[in-house]
């Protein structure tokens, strides 16, 4: 008898339906799997055999053929185990009368018949639902993640035996109740702007950066709090919306980094080490294409500490995603596109010894050394960082002062106001923040007064700015005007934006 069970494979963030067909016929006992399974899928043979045996069910004798259709896409991972087991049982007539039609089975099996969680469940469920499937059997350990998919019947199971009893109607399983999404404030390991002493300029830059979705570079001597400032970034970012959360969760689900909550309810803050390779940064891998750090930072912050220490190629690879907000990774098996709309925050010392430009310490680097150090960051990358600010050496008095600083919550309120102005403005443009403005929006929303235009021209000539830098200054001015709830960009806004382009005055 032939049995057909539906399962799903992942391609990037999209689920692709895979039919597991099993035929058990008389003959010399054999057990074959066809249809482009990879090693982990082939190993499911043994897991399924043991799981069936140890669930007090019968492993059929005879010639067994399992086929994965369509045969032309590569199947990877262990998510097919449950579907293979169910189809085997059905083909060997142990599920007579059970209705398996239209149910998608997902899960990995343990040898004792327990159902283990799988990576990438939520993106599969979302794709499957879009393709018309409404009934799912999923691992109980994935239940929290699955519960965020509304409008479907999702049955969590913890063993194969339980699955069989459910299918035969011997046991009822309550479908998961849809979970309500509650955005969570970023715990950020206790980071809060309230605890950042001094640094008025950097704080302001942080606020502008978040309000307009701009990238940020913090330059300063060692030990002045660059990392601490960066850690505060997620705490002032606006709350996640459900759509954003789902998008982020999909990525983290595929990467297998989803926490116990089952959904990413706070903005990611990724800090890849400077030894990270291009593949680690952008995604890839020799078999399954995995999302890289920039995709894991989607919707949140990618923090690159000690920017010049990074290898050149991963940094240069950031250039295109910084513009497009997505990355397409191509491998021989095909290409996959991951979203990668993140906010880049980087930090660096002003020179190798860290004291260049310091008022009270002497820099021991030669001009050539400083140039070499700065040259590690290419002009095109620097151009894409709208805000470049110096972080001050904080005096001891400021460090020990009790004066309450503005908290992250207060700053977030201002940011939210600026963001709402932007969302009204860009209602028809299909973008969310000022930093995403294209030429058309720049022309429409960033008109300067005559005076503002003159200032920008002088700065342009004096600082030898590129055309892109000019656009970036305009975008930052727009954000500064938004923070001031000002319809028009005033000359002062342009000036302030110019003051955050430190990199152009470094030479």
């Amino acid at each position, binding site marked *: 008898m032939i049995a057909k069970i539906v399962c799903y494979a992942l391609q990037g963030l999209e689920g692709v339906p895979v039919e597991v067909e099993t035929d058990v016929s008389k003959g010399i006992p054999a057990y074959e799997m066809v249809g482009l399974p990879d090693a982990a899928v082939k190993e499911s043979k043994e897991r399924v055999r043991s799981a069936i045996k140890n669930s007090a069910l019968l492993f059929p004798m005879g010639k067994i053929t399992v086929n994965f259709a369509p045969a032309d896409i590569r199947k990877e991972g262990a998510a097919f185990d449950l579907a293979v087991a169910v189809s085997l049982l059905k083909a060997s007539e142990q599920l007579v009368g059970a209705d398996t039609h239209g149910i998608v089975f997902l899960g990995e099996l343990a040898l004792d018949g327990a159902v283990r969680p799988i990576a990438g469940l939520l993106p599969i469920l979302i794709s499957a639902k879009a393709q018309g499937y409404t009934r799912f059997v999923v691992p109980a350990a994935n239940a929290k993640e699955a519960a965020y998919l509304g409008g479907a019947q999702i049955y969590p199971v913890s063993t194969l035996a339980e699955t069989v009893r459910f299918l035969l109607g011997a046991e009822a399983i309550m479908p998961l109740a849809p979970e309500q999404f509650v955005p969570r404030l970023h715990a950020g390991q206790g980071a809060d702007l309230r605890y950042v002493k001094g640094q008025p*300029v950097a704080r302001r830059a942080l606020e502008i950066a978040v309000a307009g979705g701009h990238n940020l570079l913090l330059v300063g001597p060692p030990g002045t709090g660059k990392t601490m400032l960066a850690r505060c970034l997620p705490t002032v970012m606006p709350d996640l919306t459900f759509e954003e959360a789902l998008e982020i969760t999909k990525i983290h689900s595929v990467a297998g980094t989803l926490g116990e909550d089952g959904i990413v309810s706070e903005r990611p803050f990724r800090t890849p080490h400077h030894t990270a390779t291009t593949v680690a940064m952008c995604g890839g891998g020799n078999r399954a294409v995995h999302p890289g750090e920039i995709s894991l930072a989607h919707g949140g912050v990618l923090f690159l500490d000690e920017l010049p220490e990074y290898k050149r190629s991963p940094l240069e690879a950031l250039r295109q995603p910084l513009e497009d907000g997505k990355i397409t990774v191509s491998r021989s098996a095909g290409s996959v596109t991951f979203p990668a709309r993140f906010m880049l925050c980087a930090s660096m010392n*002003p020179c190798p010894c860290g004291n260049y430009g310091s008022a009270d310490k002497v820099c021991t680097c030669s001009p050539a050394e400083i140039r070499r150090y700065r040259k590690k960051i290419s002009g095109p990358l620097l151009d894409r960082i709208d805000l470049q600010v110096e972080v001050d*050496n904080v005096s001891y008095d400021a460090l020990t002062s009790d004066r309450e600083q503005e908290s992250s919550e207060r700053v977030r309120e201002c940011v939210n106001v600026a963001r709402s102005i932007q969302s009204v403005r860009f209602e028809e443009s299909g973008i969310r923040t000022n930093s995403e403005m294209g030429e058309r929006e720049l022309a429409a929303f960033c008109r300067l007064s005559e005076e503002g235009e003159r200032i920008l021209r002088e*700065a342009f000539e004096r600082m030898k700015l590129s055309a892109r830098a000019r656009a970036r200054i305009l975008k930052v001015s727009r954000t500064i005007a938004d923070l001031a709830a000002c319809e028009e960009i005033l000359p002062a806004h342009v000036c302030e934006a110019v003051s955050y382009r430190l990199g152009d005055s470094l030479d």
Partner: protein
Amino acid sequence: MSAYTEEERLFIWLAACAGLDDRARSSLSRTCGRGIPPEALEKICAAVVQTGEGGVYKSDRASRLREADAAIAHMDKLRCFAVTLASADYPAALRAIPDPPVALFCAGRRKLLAARKFCIVGSRKLPPWARETGKTIAAELSARFALVTGIAEGGDRAAIDGALPSGNLISVLPGGLDVDYPAAHAALKREIAKKGLIVSEYPLRTRVQKYSFHARNRILAGLSEGVLVLAAGERSGTLITANRALSYGRDVFALPHNAGAAQGAGCNELIKQGAYLCTDAGDILAMYGMERRRAEDVSLTPAEQTMLACLRDAGEGHAAALAAAAGVPVWEAQATLASLEIKGLAARAGGNQYTALKH
């Protein structure tokens, strides 16, 4: 027919073909500095041959001239020329020092050699305000003088940036004209050769040595009527130029720095010893009896005026401190300061510090 006289060609031979080491070169300079009649030149050439490497190198007057012509042909190809002690336009001020170079290899505008010359130098690392001030002074002086400087970063660069637009700029190199040092300034060197003049005591292809800076600095001082030191540490090489200038009887000017600032200790020391304190080009022009042209007034908004007053009051200050003094939020102060920076009235001094600049 060569554009050089026979005497000039012999000097070129001495400077470019005789294979002199640095010691022989400076002793030759001292000998020739006293002024020598043409027949003595012949003897000097012969003496050089005898002390030449291994003492085996022999040559007569005709072959010397042939060798000089070959060197001249090579220079022509690179559009370089030589000005020797025998040339009419050898700078008189330089001829007056005890050890003038026997030949100067040059590329660019020859007539700058005849102009009045003033030198601006400074250490390679100098505070941003000193760089801006130096640039402004250089720009203003270059209308009256040919500005003499080196080609390194820092002080040299400030002078170059100020004077290059007018083209009244002489850059004295520490190595052969075709040697790119510092490598990062190769393009800059070509631009100076196009708009101004580059000069070196050393023949083409001479690599830069540590001691060649020392020798080069005497040319900087020797060419100029006066020297302005933008910044110098306590033991900066820039002080060599200043000391040379003093010993040649030239005027020395120095920018005053904060007491205790390491980068300016040398300048302050110079002032203590009697150098002229200089805060703008007017101080220098007045010394040479020149009128200063009135700078056009920049129009300032009320906020800028307030901020400028606070900045000048403090001399130097953190954006936050200046904001407090002016009674505005930090970001507003930041904007005003940026606009003052664009107008050339303030400079960023690192770590969000700003300094006032004299206009």
